[in-house]
């Protein structure tokens, strides 16, 4: 980050708090998600799509056993506290990836500024800048940052020939000692933005989406630009009365509104860009 930019506008560099507007004060783009947990079946299609799109290495059993797996998009399965004996209400699935926090705990602590806030409201991770202090992950409440514990391209498991032919040239294959995480498929976003700029417009809703959202068989994931008030994702956030710049939503203050929108660990004031819609269960059944 050059001195000029630092001096020109520090806030551009460090989003401390989103402005009180639907898009958190972003000018052109504010990428965000809404995930409907009532139709998320936990089928892992999104996770595999992420492997395919983002050159994620397969680490193999032995390393997986050490908790060194690299899935940016992980499906979590919880059981209901009440009936752990027999889960009469089924399991609880949660697709968890980087929440692209507006005030991201990871950004402020990185000693080399390898993770920054982009004008599009993304939480960028610059692989080549990373020195691997792992402070970002230490400070991430969601633990969705994944570290390259080994030189995976060199690992016999990951990409024996001819598997490397499948690798996506739009993003790098991360090497040893680098932190990585979900990027909202930034390579797709950049491509879409460039096309849009050439035509002197901004990206239209539905013109670009993330690999996970595209794959999801139940269309549980909605991705889009919050700056566009008519984008699907904006609509969803608006109707669920979840506001980007609040750590306690008004609807929650006023008791049970019956609206399903919520954000995980909202109270930590990281202002995540992913809204989840509560899972619904029929109590009569």
């Amino acid at each position, binding site marked *: 980050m050059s001195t000029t930019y630092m001096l020109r506008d520090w806030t551009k560099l460090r989003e401390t708090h989103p402005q009180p507007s639907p898009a958190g004060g972003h000018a052109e783009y504010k990428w965000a998600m809404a995930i409907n*947990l009532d*139709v998320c*079946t*936990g*089928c*892992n*299609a999104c996770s*595999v799509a992420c*492997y*395919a799109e983002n050159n994620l290495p*397969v680490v*193999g*059993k032995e390393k997986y*056993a050490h908790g060194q797996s690299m*899935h940016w998009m992980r499906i979590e*399965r919880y*059981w*209901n*506290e009440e009936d752990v*004996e027999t*889960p*009469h*209400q*089924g*399991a609880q*699935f*949660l697709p968890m990836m980087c929440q692209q926090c507006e005030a991201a705990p990871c950004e402020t602590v990185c000693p080399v500024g390898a993770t920054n806030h982009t004008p599009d409201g993304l939480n960028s991770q610059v692989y*080549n800048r990373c020195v691997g202090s792992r402070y970002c992950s230490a400070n991430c409440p969601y633990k969705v940052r994944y570290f390259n514990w080994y030189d995976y*391209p060199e690992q016999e498991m990951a990409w*024996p*020939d*001819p598997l490397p*032919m*499948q*690798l*996506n*040239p739009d993003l790098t*294959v991360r*090497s*040893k*000692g*680098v932190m990585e995480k979900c990027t909202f498929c930034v390579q797709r976003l950049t491509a879409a933005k460039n096309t849009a700029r050439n035509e002197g417009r901004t990206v239209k809703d539905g013109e670009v989406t993330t*690999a996970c959202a595209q*794959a999801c068989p*139940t*269309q*549980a994931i909605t991705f889009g630009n919050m700056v566009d008030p008519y984008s699907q994702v904006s609509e969803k956030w608006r*109707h669920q009365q979840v506001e980007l710049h609040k750590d306690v939503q008004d609807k929650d203050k006023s008791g049970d*509104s*019956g609206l*399903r929108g919520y954000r*995980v*660990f909202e109270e930590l004031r990281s202002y995540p860009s992913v809204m989840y819609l509560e*899972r*619904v*269960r*029929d*109590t*009569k*059944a």
Partner: protein
Amino acid sequence: MSNINRRDFLKVLGWSSVAVAVAGCGKTSVESGVETVMSYSQPEDFLVPSIGVYYASTCTQCEANCGVTGRVREGRILKLEGNPESAINLGRLCGLGQAAVQHHYNPDRLKEPLLRQGGGLQPTTWENATALLAEKTGDLKGEQFAFLSGGLSGHLKVLVQNYVDSLGSKNLYFYEALTPAVNQSVSQKLYGTATPRFHLDKAQLIVSFGADFLDTWVSPVHFASQYTQFRKATIDKKRGTLVQIEPRMTLTGANADRWIPIIPGTEGVLALGLVNALLKGGIGVKSLPASVVSAVRAYDKERVNKEAGVSGEVFDKLVALLSERSPSLVLSGLSAEGHAHGAQNAAAIMLLNVVLGNVGKTIDAPTRLPFPQLAAEEGNSVALKRFNDSLAGDKFKVVFIYNANPVYTAPAFMKLRDNLKKSEFKVVFTHYLDETAQEADLVLPLDSALEDWGTHVAAYQPDSIELTMQQPLMEKLYPSGTRSLGDVMLDQLKHRRANEYKDFADYYAYLKSALTRNKGAFSGVSADDETFWNQALMHGVLKVKGQEQSISANVVNLDIAQPAPIGDDQYPFHLVPTVRSGFRDGRHANLPWLQETPDSLTTMVWDSWVEIHPKTAERMGIKEGDILEIASKNGSIKTQAYLFPGVQPDSVAIPLGQGHEAMGRYAKDVGVNPFKLLDPVFDKSTGELAMHATRVKVSRTGASVRVVKEEGWSPIVVNTQQGRKLVSTIAVDKANFSKEV
């Protein structure tokens, strides 16, 4: 696009940019004149470097045949997406489908034909191989030849059929280990169609007896999209309620509003109990003949409670739901039909649809396909049994096996490996050197699904019938090493029926002419052959003009009698072989992505495990990671224990698909293969192998391991949210859907 070879120059650039991609981010080589940049010799104007092009094709990972589009860049297929034009998956794609690229690029793919010389398999050329085929089948009597194929449809099926006919043989077997064959036979009897069309989206209530329609059953991606509508609450429709009844929680069960564990094999009892209760409540009395009405009287709440282990309270709730919510939909799945009385089970369950008057509302008849020869042969396990019996009787001299791995999937009691030895010339068409290929005399490596041409007609058609196109998404990886089965068949047919097939240069030419000749059968296509063909390839989907049919239930002489449950003191547990969406019958076990993807419910990876209910485990003093021995009358396997609340306490569940002895680095020696345990129990009416009728005993070996799973390793055995608000749940009557979009 009509000539595929025009794309080969792209390979050059493809390779070089791989080098770039793999170089990774650690290195910063910015000196000039180090890397070489390849230019095209003759570019295609529609191909621009660094910009991906999408080609439509068909997913062959499972029988659902979703439409896919492949992103091709610099001549390499990078990623598969769903094809929005396909009514089956509407642009969506499951994990299994996406992983097809790893079949294509798999490091363990066979790169050349193998011939058994002396002891082992030695490399040979296709020329020898094809010559050998012709020679071996030259003066062969029809009954001495057998062709065992996996599920098949479209023009390849026609070619195979014709080839078998040309040998004067009747022995063409379509074998699949995991098809709902019993269901189909029953619904054939009951609805007059084997594959009725379901409308989950229209249903207010779905009661599914082990039908895992969200993950592994029939056409998962399509049902998933319907499920979205089913769950959606709109002005004219309440949010649908899902009840799942099964011995082991499937993914569908995990998403149910109510999951009811049931003793395997007693689904029918519960179903009839429900019918009885509904009739008592005055519902659907007219829909049933007196004979049936009287037959179900015997099934009351107490009996259901006693035999099926479903409590009266749950039963009443279920009855209440069924009588309130209409239209509803009752489905019967693998765990219900996999018994000696599977047909009766299925019949009893489907009877509910009749009683509730769902037939015609949420269930209707599929469109009739004008050309049956292209229709899907889903295959079944009877085929395997007959095939195996004849082998045992030493009937076959020459055997062809395609798209099946019977040596792996056949239960131990069949002794298929030994029987196969009796036939003197075994040809296996495959991608990997799997268990069956290892037994073969001639192994012929096929093009991957992303290199091959083909047409498919999915067995389950959501609305009007589709014929989906399969086309190469990139240049062959091993141009001289692999071939398309279509080409091989055509080649052989040219020997035998020269005059019929002489004017087809290759399988591609055959397909093209076959389709263009009857393009009249498709709706909304142009008159000109070339344009028609290009459109077909561009869209990947052809809508077939089929005629609609009506559906009606016919319950007379429907066998619903439920046998009395039989205990077994020596083998106290029911074995539930569970289907994993990633592996199916094990043919996808060599895909690293799928091995690394945690099982949705247990979050286990890279291995097999036996699921046992925590209570039962406590009783037997079993802890997570203990190595257990699971023994049936026909064999035993050792694997790690996983304490799983989602399994019926009298049952243990083992996932299928692992435990390969061959096939490739990612599959070999990973986990165990429960197929081998299965007891010789067959469905009485269809002769299908009863997958869920095996009894086992469980014993500790004393050994123990740390299970490799995705869920955290904390002292809390059952993984809950620990009071944090991660996945929040709201009761349907509390939720306010009015504002939702």
